[in-house]
């Protein structure tokens, strides 16, 4: 059984979006994921980190905490900020909803996280911050195949 974890703290700079993607794909590599699974994880972490930079900290400097946990073939990712929080979570998760259309935001961030991960939970407290917790089972299909074979 594989058990491992990672904790990363980064300032809310847009340069760190690609850093977060690289770190998460390198961490996930120990589960021998498919190219598609790596791409799913990269896009999910990218959306959560970008949200923290643009919305939580509103382009001011703050700290983003990225935690990843491995348990067997299950990867849990947490992206935590201590920014402004989300007033209406249900509205924020609606496809195409954005509070910043002037910045050409597509409003697809949460929809993408939900589509590419197995589970997405969001906890937010206005004025205190937001935690996005996402879970993805890696090699789901491979496991089924080996059982059949």
């Amino acid at each position, binding site marked *: 059984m594989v058990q491992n974890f990672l904790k990363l703290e980064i300032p809310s700079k847009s340069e760190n979006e690609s850093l977060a993607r690289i770190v998460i794909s390198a961490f996930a590599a120990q589960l021998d994921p498919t190219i598609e699974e790596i791409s799913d994880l990269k896009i999910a972490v990218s959306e959560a980190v970008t949200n923290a930079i643009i919305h939580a900290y509103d382009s001011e400097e703050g700290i983003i905490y990225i935690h990843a946990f491995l348990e067997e073939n299950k990867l849990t990712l947490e992206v935590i900020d201590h920014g402004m929080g989300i007033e209406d979570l249900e509205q924020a998760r609606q496809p195409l909803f954005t509070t910043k259309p002037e910045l*050409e935001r597509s409003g697809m961030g949460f929809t993408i996280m939900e589509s590419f991960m197995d589970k997405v939970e969001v906890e937010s407290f206005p004025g205190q911050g937001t935690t996005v917790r996402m879970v993805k089972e890696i090699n789901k299909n491979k496991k089924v195949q080996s059982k059949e074979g």
Partner: protein
Amino acid sequence: MEIELKLVRKNLIVRLKGELDHHTASCFREEVEREFEKEIAQNLVLNLGELTFMDSSGLGVILGRYRRITEKGGKVVVTNMQPQVERLYSLSGLQKIIPHYRREEEALRNL
């Protein structure tokens, strides 16, 4: 991200190489806006063949160019999409408004 620009008649071909995210989106926006301000190009052909990553910030900036260009009567098309970019493209519904061609030549013939 690297951006290569090429003008073919009234069509601006933009070839993107690398990753299109929130960090690189503004560079892409500025380069394309600067070209269209010259008022030579009318249509935008976006070649995503060497784009290895795109997220919702990429969708937003492409949609932003689509709005600006179609307002002035121009067209926007994308070409050479990689499978991972194409998955995002269909999920977002962008495929319903921005046509996708396999190759640049094919896109140019249809503009």
